[in-house]
């Protein structure tokens, strides 16, 4: 039973992490290059644009859900399983989602990077 809890927890963490990452990335693309905006019209313009962006709030909500799910999953399962499994799967999930929803050019180089990093994280944290 504990095992089922752990893997369900990991999948919930991964799902909400990917949704959060994609929404935050979309929000920041809509806001625009922070460095350029700060130089042009000051830091409060950035703060205003971020706080008036709905994707930002949805993304933060998704990340908060992911964060508390991670706390649960960590208290149920071994950190040596939960942390690397969630991090690796989030990494692969983000590569797919960034291609589909953000229209990023996930070329061969980035796929190789995603697989290498996911594998490396699994080995390192395992």
């Amino acid at each position, binding site marked *: 039973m504990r095992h089922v809890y752990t893997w369900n927890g990991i999948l919930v963490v991964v799902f909400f992490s990917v949704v959060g990452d994609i929404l935050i990335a979309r929000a920041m693309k809509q806001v625009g290059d922070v460095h350029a905006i700060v130089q042009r019209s000051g830091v409060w313009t950035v703060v205003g644009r971020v706080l008036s962006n709905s994707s930002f709030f949805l993304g933060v909500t998704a990340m908060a859900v992911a964060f508390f799910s991670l706390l649960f999953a960590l208290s*149920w399962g071994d950190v040596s399983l939960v942390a690397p499994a969630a991090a690796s799967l989030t990494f692969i999930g983000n590569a797919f989602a960034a291609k589909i929803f953000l229209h990023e050019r996930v070329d061969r180089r980035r796929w190789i990077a995603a697989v290498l990093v996911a594998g490396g994280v699994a080995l390192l944290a395992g």
Partner: protein
Amino acid sequence: MTFRKYLVLAGITVFAAAGDSLLSHGMKQVGAISIHHLQSVILAVRNPFVAIGIVLLLAFFASYMNALSWADLTYVLPATSLGYVLLALVAKFALHEQVSLVRWLGIVLISGGVGFVAGGPALTAHGHDDDSKSPLLPKSGRSGAPNVHIHERAEL
């Protein structure tokens, strides 16, 4: 890529690594949380390690959003994974812990993955490339491969 942008990526790495390890340490002290006592997750914030960990993760989040404003998600994410490498190196050289062969292999894989992404453009979704001065880009010349690389980049 400017020096300032590399600093933002470094901030993501350091804040994520430090925040995660403090949070992990704190949650170990708090202990297992039962599904029947959900409110104890909120009370975990009273642990100082959890609290400082959360502050560092907020700093991570600010750097992360900053980076996402000028780079792709699939470019920024490897920077966060470098935090794992950082943690292993701190464990080895500062805490003198034993780092196993499997973990060194993990470090090699992550570093290789980051190298792959860092060699490419930071931003692809909006069709322009501000990464033409990347120091990690292979030098052009001797073999045929770099020409293929340049051709790929020209499309972007």
